[in-house]
């Protein structure tokens, strides 16, 4: 199954969750300062483990940077 994570295409197993892809991008997913949107909707941290991704999902995994 194909999903788009931070603009890049990625092949994942069926049934993979948000937590799965977060871990690939960010080895310390518990860290404060990370947030995830799937298809432009926020996925609260508490749902990462159980929220499965659908084929073609657009996942944005964001973190804090300097700015403003």
């Amino acid at each position, binding site marked *: 199954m194909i999903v788009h994570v*931070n*603009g890049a295409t990625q092949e994942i197993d069926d049934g993979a969750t948000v937590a799965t892809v977060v871990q690939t991008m960010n080895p310390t997913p518990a860290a*404060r300062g990370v947030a995830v949107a799937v298809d432009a909707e926020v996925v609260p941290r508490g749902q990462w483990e159980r929220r499965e991704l659908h084929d073609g999902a657009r996942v944005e*995994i964001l973190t804090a940077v*300097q700015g*403003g």
Partner: protein
Amino acid sequence: MSDPLVIAGRKLESRLILGTGGFASLDALAQAIEASATELVTLALRRVDPTQRGSIVDVLDRAGVALLPNTAGCYTARDAVTTARLAREAFETDWIKLEVIGDDRTLLPDGPELLRAAEELVADGFVVLPYTNDDPILAVRLQDVGCAAVMPLGSPIGSGMGIRNPYNLRIMRERVELPLILDAGVGTASDAALAMELGCDGVLCASAISRAQDPTAMAGAIRAAVQAGRTAHLAGRIPRRLHAEASTTDAGLPDFDAPPAGTPHGAG
């Protein structure tokens, strides 16, 4: 004698809000935070970069400052709202510096989109601090929809041009009861002092500090200037005049030249 800036019920002893963009390193940022004495600091959200070392959140947490995430880079109300919600999730704060810009060259705000996003975020429970232009009418509209402060620019972000139109800020101050925070354009200390003298309640400053040749020194300078401007505003300045007003009296001025008028010299 405390004179805190109060936004949405939170008291800030420092009236300087620090933007974190442009610092050469997290160390430089940490030093500037300390020198500035700020209690509220902006930051942004971008895609995770697995190669990145060090976290700005850790730096800010260690400094004990509150976080003010922004929506920099958003051109539409929709993107700004999504970004704000992600920031709330990431940083566990309802506070958001709302930016909806119209143009990547001027970074000037897009008024109608900004107003729409503000309205939606207020309804969603956010404490909204919108970065806006110096239009007094838009400022009132932002107040009307429930923002927690209004943050007008003095000049474009990073331009260092100071306050190009002080008249607009004066008019805005007459119309807006919310805290007014000057949010862009400060180039150096006198700009920050002037903002406060015009009646702003605070100053948000990033590039003027982060890109100065000596950011730590400039942080201290702008901190002092904000306080100086605030104090001067409250102290009640003298009026402006076209002509002079003597600071030394003419009464008792000696006359080294003429004998006193009407005196028959040598008459005695």
